[in-house]
C-alpha cells in the first residue's frame, strides 16, 4: 500500500436476493484510490456503481471481500461504522438529500452536530464551507426548496466536507443539474481533491467526467475495469 493510497477495495461482491433469485450487483471488484485524486466510475444504469459506492460508504454490507479506508478495515465486525461514516466519508447524492426543514447553514452543521462538535465551532466551519462553495448571504438561512439545484448541490458538498472526511463519495452529482451547473460542481469536486487532498470518488453515467479525473473505471454488470489500463 503506497503512502498516498487511502482506499483499497479487494475482491468485493454484493448480491441482492430477489424473487427470481440472487442478483450480483458487485462482482469481485477490486480497486484502489489515492489522496488528492479524483476517481471516476462510469457505467450504464443498473451496472452496480451506486451499490459499490454504498458498500464503500458502509451503507451496504458485501458478502465477501475487504475494504480498507485510511488503514481501517471497515468490514471488521469491531469497526464502529457510524463513527466511520462521520469521520471518514462524506456523501454527495444526485438528489442532494438535504433536510427540507433545515436551512443551508443548518444542513451543513448537521453532521458536525451529530459528531458532537461544539455549536460555535459548527457555525464557523459551516459558514466557511458555504462561503467556499459560494453559497452565502441570504442563502445561509434559505431552505432547500428556496434554492436552485446547483445551490443545493453546493450545500450538499459543503455538508459532505463538514467533518473533513478522507473520502468524498459522489453519486451522480451532476445527474440532476444542467450542463453548466454540473460543470461547476465537478470543478468544485476536483478542486477539493487538488486543494484539500481529499480522495474523491465520483460515480456517474456521464463519460465526459472521465476527462477531469485522475483514474477512471468502467462498470458493467457488477464488474469493474480500469479505463486506459
Amino acid at each position, binding site marked *: 500500500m503506497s503512502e498516498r493510497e487511502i482506499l483499497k477495495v479487494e475482491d468485493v461482491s454484493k448480491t441482492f436476493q430477489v424473487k427470481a433469485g440472487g442478483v450480483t450487483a458487485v462482482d469481485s471488484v477490486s480497486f484502489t484510490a489515492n489522496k488528492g485524486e479524483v476517481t471516476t466510475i462510469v457505467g450504464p444504469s443498473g451496472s452496480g456503481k451506486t451499490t459499490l459506492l454504498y458498500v464503500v460508504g458502509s451503507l451496504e454490507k458485501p458478502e465477501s471481500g475487504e475494504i480498507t479506508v485510511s488503514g481501517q478495515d471497515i468490514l471488521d465486525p469491531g469497526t464502529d461504522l457510524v463513527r466511520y461514516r462521520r*469521520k471518514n466519508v462524506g456523501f454527495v447524492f444526485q438528489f442532494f438529500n*438535504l*433536510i427540507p426543514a433545515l436551512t443551508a447553514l443548518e444542513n451543513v452543521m448537521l453532521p458536525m452536530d451529530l459528531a458532537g462538535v461544539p455549536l460555535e465551532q459548527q457555525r464557523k466551519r459551516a459558514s466557511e464551507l458555504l462561503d467556499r462553495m459560494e453559497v452565502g448571504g441570504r442563502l445561509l438561512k434559505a431552505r432547500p426548496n428556496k434554492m436552485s439545484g446547483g445551490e443545493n448541490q453546493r450545500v450538499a458538498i459543503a455538508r459532505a466536507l463538514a467533518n473533513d472526511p478522507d473520502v468524498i463519495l459522489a453519486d451522480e452529482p451532476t445527474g440532476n443539474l444542467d450542463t453548466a451547473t454540473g460543470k461547476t460542481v465537478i470543478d468544485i469536486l476536483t478542486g477539493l481533491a487538488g486543494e484539500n487532498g481529499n480522495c474523491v470518488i465520483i460515480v456517474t453515467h456521464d463519460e465526459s467526467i472521465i476527462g477531469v479525473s485522475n483514474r477512471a473505471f468502467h462498470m458493467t454488470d457488477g464488474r469493474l475495469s480500469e479505463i486506459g489500463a
Partner: protein
Amino acid sequence: MRSFHRGFRSFRRNYARNLIVVVLLFVCLTFSMSMLAVKLAADNQVDKIKQTVGNYGEIKVSSDYQMKQFQAERQKSAAERAAEARSMTPEQELANRTQDLVPETMTDKFSKAAYIKTYDKVLSARVQVTGLTNTNLQKLFQLRESGPQEQEAGPMGNLNQNTFFFQGNTNGASASDFTTGAKKLVQGKLFTYDDYKNANPVVVIEKNLADQNNLKIGDTVEAQVSGQTGVGSYMELKITGIYETVQAEQQNQSTSAGVMANFNPAGNSFYAPTSVVQKLNTTPGYVSLGSYYFGSVGDTAALNRAFKTEVGSTKKYEFATDLSDYQAIADPLLKARNTSVIGLAGALGACALIILLAMVIIVSGRTRELGVLKAIGSTDRQVIVQYAFEVLCICLVAVIMAMGATALIGQSMGNWLLPKSQKTSQQSSMEGGPGGPMRMFNPNSLYKEGSQFSLGASSQKQQAAKLNVVYRGSLFLYGILILVGISLVGMAIPVFWIIRLRPARVLSME
C-alpha cells in the same frame, strides 16, 4: 440534548403538518380529559356521599308491624280499649306499652357487630309536664272541638294540652336534630353520656317555650311518670340547656306576620337522657330504636345478615338503613361516571389511533430524511430521540390545549352525562321525602335525618343533583400520564421504522 434540540426544531419547522395532528389530538384529548374530569368529580362526590349517607342503620319495630297494630286498635271502640286497659295485669301493661319498642338487649348486642362505628339508643315518648302548655296540641284540640269529628277521640285520646314530646338519647350532642343543624343550643349545655348512665333528671327545652313560661337554666319542670298516680308519680327535671329551632327562625325572618310566624311545633320537643325518658315512660329496658353508624355503604349487606342472625325469623323488628337515600343520590353520579369511563376509553383509543396513523404518515413521508441522517453519521438512538421528542412536542401541545379546553367544557360534559331523572328525584325528596315536613308521620323515615324541619337529607340531595366538575390536581397528573401514554404509542412507529430502515435502500429511491 442535541437530539432533543433537533427534535424541537423539527417540530417547529414542520408546523403545518404537525398542526393538523395537534388539532386532531386536541379534539380527542379534550373529550378524553373532560370524561376523565367527570369521572374524577363523580368518584369524589360519591366518596363524600359515602361519608354521610349509606352508612347509617337503625333497629326499630318494623313499619308493617306498627301498621297492623294501628289497624287492630282502630277496630276497637274507645269503650273496648278502656275495658281492656282496666283488666290488664302489670305485665300486660308493660307489654302493651312496649309493643312499639325494641329491647335494649337487642340493640346492645347488635352494637358489637363488625363495621359498627357509633351506637345510640333513642326513645321518644309523650310526657305530661305540669304547668306548661303545648301550643301545637292546643291548636289541634281547638280544631278538633270545632270540627265534625269531635266525638271520635281515636288514638289521640290520651293526649292533652300538657303533653310534650320527649326525645331521649345517650348524649345530647349526638341527637340528630342537633347534628343535622335543625336545632342549636343557645344557652346552657346539652346532657352528657354520664347523665344517661346515671339517669340524671335533666332536660333541654326550646327557647320560645322557656321565654313564654319564664324558664331559665337551672329551673325545674315537673313531669308525670306515665301510668302512675299519687305521690312519687312526678319527676323534677332540671333545665340544663335551651335550644333554638333554626328552621322556625328562618320562617320568622321570611314571613312578615301571622299564624305561620308563631307556629313553632318544634318548640314542644324536650331532649333528655334515654334513661330518664324510660323512667318517665315506664318502659325500662326498651327504646324506640338503636341508631348505628357503620363504615360505609359497602357494609350494609353484611350488617343485614348480622341482624337476621340476631333476630331470627321474627318480622317484628327491622334494620332500616339509608341505602335507598344513598342510591337516590349516588346512582346518577355512578351512571355518569360509568358513561364517562366508556367515553374516556373510546376517546383514548381514538387518540392512540390518531397518533399512530399520523406518525405512519409523517415517518413514511420523511423516510429519505431518516436515511440521510443515518448516512451522514447519526446513530439509531440519536434519530429515535429526535423523533420521539418531536412526537412528545406534538402530544404536549395537544394535551396542554386539551387541559385548557377541559377546564372550560368539563362542567357542561358533567351536566350532559348526569341522568335527567336526578332532577326529578331531587324534587320529590324536597316535596315529601325523608327530611321534609311530613317526616314525623312517615314510619319509613330515619332518626338520623332529624325530626321535624330537618335540613339534612334534602339539602344533601340538592348538592348531589349537580355534578361539580372542578379542576383537580389529579386531573393534571392523569394528563401527564395520558401524555406519556400517547407519546409512547406515537413513538412506537418511528422506533420501529428507524431500526428497520436501511439507508442504502432509501437513498437509492428516486
